[in-house]
């Protein structure tokens, strides 16, 4: 997953508005009860924004690691043995794939992978589909699937 313009806007909005809701009532000397209610809501908004920042950074680090595997990894193939989804993330199916992973020099083995995919991609994850895969040369169990 990667953050997009809407995500940046949401983080900005909830972060700035949340912080303002915490600080402005105090700065204006509002009634303590009012400041507490508005401030609590603001704190929740701010925490939501920080949660989104954490999620975006986590995905950025994961993407950087995957880019490294793509640049330095061993290219092989992954054949879809089974595919299914029981959950969605932002309307995108969270797919559980069972793969026959074939990496030259490492051998074949069965592996499972969970991936959030667009609907049109998820629809095509059928038994027998062969996709490129790249394995980490330092840890062949660490691989990326090209879809």
């Amino acid at each position: 997953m990667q953050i997009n313009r809407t995500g940046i806007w949401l983080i900005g909005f909830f972060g700035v508005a949340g912080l303002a809701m915490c600080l402005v009532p105090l700065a204006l000397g509002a009634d303590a009860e009012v400041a507490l209610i508005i401030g609590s809501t603001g704190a929740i908004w701010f925490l939501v924004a920080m949660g989104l920042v954490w999620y975006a950074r986590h995905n950025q680090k994961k993407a950087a690691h995957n880019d490294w595997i793509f640049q330095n990894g061993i290219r092989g193939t992954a054949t879809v043995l089974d595919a299914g989804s029981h959950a969605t993330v932002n309307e995108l199916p969270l797919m559980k794939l069972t793969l026959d992973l074939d990496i030259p020099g490492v051998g074949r083995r069965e592996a499972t992978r969970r991936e959030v995919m667009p609907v049109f991609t998820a629809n095509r994850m059928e038994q027998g589909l062969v996709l490129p895969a790249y394995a980490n040369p330092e840890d062949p169990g660490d691989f990326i699937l090209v879809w």
Partner: protein
Amino acid sequence: MADLEATYSAFAAERGLELVPAVGIGQLTPLLVESTVGGQLAPAARGRISAELDGIVGQLAYKRNKTFRFTVALTRVLSSTPFVPRLFCIRQGRSTRDDEFYGFEARHSKLWTESEKLNDRFTISTSPYQDANWMRQLFSPALVDWLANEPPADFSFELAYGALLGSIEEDAPGPDQLAALCDATAHVAARIARECGE
């Protein structure tokens, strides 16, 4: 609607296609996923849509805050999946679903080319783990020049797992526009197939 059916009927007769009132082609590409009735074209015509290419051409409705209508041509480039699982070349300014996915979306890479004219006209995106060298060969100077100058002004295409969908933003296309869409889609299909074969 009667005019549209007459246009498709005339185009089908001219190219020897089978006219069909409505046909479901499945949710094969992002545009088809967003269609009002999962990948349904109405009306449509199928058969040899261009000189050496079989496919289907038809009208697609796409609902967001209002209903948009596209004219699309679908064909197959089956050899493309191992080389380029997904490739989207979308006209600049076309509203697409990926700009509103609640802040996070599936990862993709946007391609940059040295052609300012191409960059002004299209946003090109693909899988983040796409062989860059292969993509440079696909987007040869000839293809870049063709894309920048030759297709209809509102032409876009989506390639996903061997399904190639060319589209223009026309509510009621004329026979010339249908022909231009089919020929542009055929040109892209031929170029991708040739590069996959090399």
